[in-house]
């Protein structure tokens, strides 16, 4: 009996679709990754899931220097979502290199560092330091953090600003360069094109939508910073639309995210044109969700008779 069961599992595995995708020079065993700021450096999740099952991890936003982040309260629940105003709290790139990198570099998945900054020089200096790390195959340039005054959103909301910072980092960073775009703009496709023109290997979107919450009884804002970044299923329709617009506009692969809670949501992003996806807020509701999404994508591809994830990327039937 046991032998039979094993055989059938083996058989099932052999008919599984090919989930591998490539972004820039990086191969991913599957297109499911976790979003910056929602997954730490992975270690918080090892009790709940096998990191080796997912395609990659985008780390916490890292800056040139240590940052304390914004004051508490930094979080407010909203209808089908949440606002955060963490404000890029992190110990700085040197601490990452000396204390975090040695611990995470043997993970059996791709680790991409999310790089944030306030000035072009900061971005460049941080990227340069990461360039030297063997086991970090890519960075995600966060030009879209809405939660700190100089969190890069000033770069991310204009084509010129975005192009300028990408150009500078591109010179300093030789590996795969992913640029994370802000949704708080009139025309996200043009910004995507601008960063593509400067040599970005991929764009990821969306970062959080700028929002706000108020406690009517106390008349106070619910975040110390008044405004914060909205994430979760509430933003999925906007994220999906932007991924669709950007995927039509650029030739580089698009990494889609925003409100993905399960495999069905993920598949919608592939159909809209994403080559890979990130899971953010959903990790808070179910710390093993990313592995479940991998399984669900497999099940979907099998059920529909697709042999590769590429069969559904951009395959929206209009």
């Amino acid at each position: 009996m046991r032998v039979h069961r094993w055989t059938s599992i083996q058989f099932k595995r052999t008919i599984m679709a090919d989930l591998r995708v490539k972004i820039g020079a990086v191969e991913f065993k599957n297109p499911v990754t976790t979003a910056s700021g929602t997954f730490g450096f992975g270690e918080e999740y090892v009790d709940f899931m096998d990191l080796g099952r997912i395609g990659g991890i985008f780390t916490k936003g890292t800056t040139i220097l240590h940052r304390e982040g914004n004051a508490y309260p930094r979080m407010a629940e909203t209808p089908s979502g949440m606002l955060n105003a963490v404000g890029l709290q992190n110990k700085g790139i040197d601490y990452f290199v000396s204390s975090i990198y040695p611990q995470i570099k043997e993970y059996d998945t791709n680790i991409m560092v999310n790089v944030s900054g306030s000035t072009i020089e900061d971005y460049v200096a941080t990227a340069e330091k990461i360039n030297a790390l063997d086991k970090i195959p890519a960075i995600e340039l966060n030009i879209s953090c809405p939660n700190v005054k100089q969190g890069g959103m000033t770069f991310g909301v204009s084509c010129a600003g975005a192009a300028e910072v990408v150009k500078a980092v591109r010179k300093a960073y030789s590996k795969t360069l992913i640029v994370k775009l802000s949704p708080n703009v009139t025309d996200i496709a043009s910004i995507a094109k601008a960063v593509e023109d400067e040599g970005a290997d991929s764009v990821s979107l969306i970062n959080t939508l700028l929002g706000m919450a108020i406690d009517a009884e106390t008349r106070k804002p619910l975040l110390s910073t008044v405004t914060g970044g909205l994430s979760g299923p509430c933003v999925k329709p906007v994220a999906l639309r932007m991924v669709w617009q950007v995927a039509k506009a650029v030739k580089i692969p698009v990494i889609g995210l925003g409100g993905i809670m399960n495999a069905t949501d993920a598949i919608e992003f592939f159909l809209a044109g994403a080559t890979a996806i990130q899971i953010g807020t959903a990790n808070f509701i179910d710390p093993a969700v990313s592995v479940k999404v991998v399984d669900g994508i497999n099940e979907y591809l099998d059920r529909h008779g697709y042999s590769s994830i590429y069969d559904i990327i951009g395959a929206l039937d209009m």
Partner: protein
Amino acid sequence: MKKCSLDMVVSANISLGDSHFLLKFTQEEPLPEMLPGQFVQVRIDNAPSVFLRRPISVNYVDRVNNELWLLVQKVGDGTRKMSEYKIGDTVNMLLPLGNSFTMPKESQSRLLLVGGGVGIAPLLFMGSTLKQEGFEPMFLLGARSEGGLMQLDEFKKLGKVYITTEDGSAGEKGFVTQHSILQEPIDMIYTCGPTPMMQAVARFAQYKSIDCEVSLENKMACGIGACLCCVTQTQTGHKCVCTDGPVFNSKELSWQI
């Protein structure tokens, strides 16, 4: 301590007055190790306006019967939904989360556990653990009025119980910090309750140079140290209440006390 995601089955839901209730979860297998002061993250489905999990302290662990107890106050949609759980319902939780109260040193024998409102929740588990370890904990419990005092019988089994109520309907009238027991020598204080109460207790402890641990209840998203939403300002910068806490030595915190 390894964290896990458990589907637990409700074995009792006992109403304690209008706004509080006690949930018991029982399972066949032994429960994972849990320490006093730790909490669980409860997943709540199908409640309007609830999106994130809800952090609730471990109120008591019965290792013989594999029971986990949660003492909960109804304050919003999430806790209201929990108050409707029926025997047999399955509830997903992440546990055990956070650090824990630290055990006293041998030399510390006069231990006072000060709780206000639903803040007594983790103190029952702490009290029972202290007693098991051979200590003789004392409890100082405060509430607005007699109706707000809960689990008194359980506390009395563990040690002496002192009470204050704001309206004087039970114990001494006033706030916990006004209770006469505080005039006697104390080696260590553990406290959990509304922030102003904990701050007053911490202020008292500092004034008297008594070691004092407070258990914070900051708003949380992940509960496992990943989101950095739950921070409190400490002498050494922002720390996560969900992993570095919820228990902090009061001297560590940057409270205006």
